[in-house]
């Protein structure tokens, strides 16, 4: 099993991005982004290649879209300003200010489920990510393939409220058994 082969196999699954990252900088070798529907297929590839599961976790990207838009707007504004300055320097009439960009509905922020896999023989940490909308966070469970994912998924469900479809026993693991809150969500207030 070598890194290139597994990268190729993963890339064969439709609709996903496989990025080789700099291990020394990041601490993992492959960064795989898949749609929730392709998750099981990607994990099966890793299972067949003899990977073991390290962890499952989540990241709440609340406010990411707003930040992205703000960044984009700032960029546009900066460009416009630069153009205006350039024009002024050239002694020309400043071009008319561009009409403000469409302020439509923000796309919904995402919850990200992150799966870490590693190999016992060769150093190859693969990070599989999948994004789901915050309002309907549903990801297929991989506990059929890796029974060890059972607890990790329960923990992620505790903390983020991500629902792992097909999980045999999705009840709170670390939180109290009647917990209906998800503390790692960014809008969680105790």
């Amino acid at each position, binding site marked *: 099993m070598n890194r290139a082969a597994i990268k190729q196999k993963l890339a064969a699954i439709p609709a996903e991005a496989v990025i080789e990252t700099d291990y020394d*900088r*990041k*601490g*993992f070798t492959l960064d795989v982004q898949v749609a929730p529907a392709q998750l099981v297929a990607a994990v099966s590839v890793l299972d067949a290649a*003899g*990977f*073991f*599961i*390290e*962890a499952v*976790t989540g*990241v*709440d990207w609340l406010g990411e879209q707003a930040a992205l838009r703000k960044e984009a707007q700032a960029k546009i504004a900066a460009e416009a300003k630069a153009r205006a300055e350039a024009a002024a320097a050239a002694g020309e009439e400043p071009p008319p200010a561009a009409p403000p960009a469409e302020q439509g509905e923000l796309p919904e922020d995402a919850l990200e489920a*992150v799966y*870490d896999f*590693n190999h*016992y*023989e060769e*150093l190859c*940490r693969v*990070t599989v990510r999948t994004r789901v909308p915050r309002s309907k966070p549903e990801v297929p469970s991989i506990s059929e393939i*890796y*029974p*060890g994912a*059972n*607890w*990790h998924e329960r*923990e992620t469900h505790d*903390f983020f409220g991500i629902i792992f479809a097909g999980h045999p026993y999705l009840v*709170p*693991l*670390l*939180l*109290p058994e009647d917990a209906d809150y998800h*503390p*790692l969500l960014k809008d969680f207030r105790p």
Partner: protein
Amino acid sequence: MSAFAGSEANETFVLNLGPQHPATHGVLRVKLTMDGEYIVEAEPVLGYIHRMHEKMGENRTWAQFLPNTGRMDYLHALAYNHGYVSVVERAAGIAVPERAEYLRVITAELNRVSSHLLWFGAFILDLGGFSPLLYAFDDREHILDLLESVTGSRLTYCYFRFGGVYNDIDDNFVAGTQAFIKRLRGRMPMYHNLVTKNIILMTRLKEIGPISAEMCRKYGATGPVCRGSGINFDVRKHEPYSIYPEFDFDVPVYEQGDSMARYMVRMDEIEQSLRIIEQALDKLPEGPVMADKVPKILKPAKGDYYHAVETARGSFGVRVVSDGSNTPYRLKLRSPTFSNLSLFGEACRGMLLPDALALMGSLDLVIPEIDR
């Protein structure tokens, strides 16, 4: 182990092992469905000392989270500090002076020995022998004295800092450590004669609690648990960090996969750790123990970073997601015993209660580390 005699389902009963039980070393509860003394099903129930370290991380600056890491696993606190400072150093691009790395390895390995010694004692205590616990404590106390003389603390050291260590060692520490290595080497044969070769212990551990390599893989078991099942996986060799590549040490691997194999792996690891410490003390370079240019307020670049270290219990990984601010955006702590314990339910099926407890002891559980 005798064979599991199956019987009607309605003849089983539920036995609550814990949360206060002598063999669970803390507040772990295991819900056992029993058929007589045979275990039909075991479901560990966690979370009794869950402290939400990951949320705490999001509410503190990078440096302020440092004391928390040692409190996850109080037995090998320095390795957990090491994992966290390493990932932050990776994220912020801080280079660590060589002497500081040596000090980190020396203290972390001493701490590993102390953790294994305590595990040894507690494991034999699970099996009903009391005296080895106190002999192990006697030795462990010497390590704690050594570490206290350097770090000022005996359990939750909080000794590492981003870019180095908190203060330098002195000659007394070097001499004391060398004397301790000699002492422990002299004591190991006693441990083996008293415990390892004891016929009662052998019958209790040999061929009890088998865990296959495939099961380790499916559950993500690391550390002595997977090395006892014939998997040669040690983060120190597998993805070398710090200055471990400089040292000559072996990774003890046993093929049998039973409780005895895990016991032997840990006992051999004590010797290997002593070897590392010895070499590190010999090679110890002069120089500063703290990097020069560490910004007072850390703001690592955006992105996510992972770093794994080998603790006494397995591979501890920290994944941080930075948004470029002075607090972590997300901090994931991958605790090794969480994965190791998750295979307990499957591994102990059909076992007798005392054997299952021997198996549980051989997994080396530290509950605060599972619950985080």
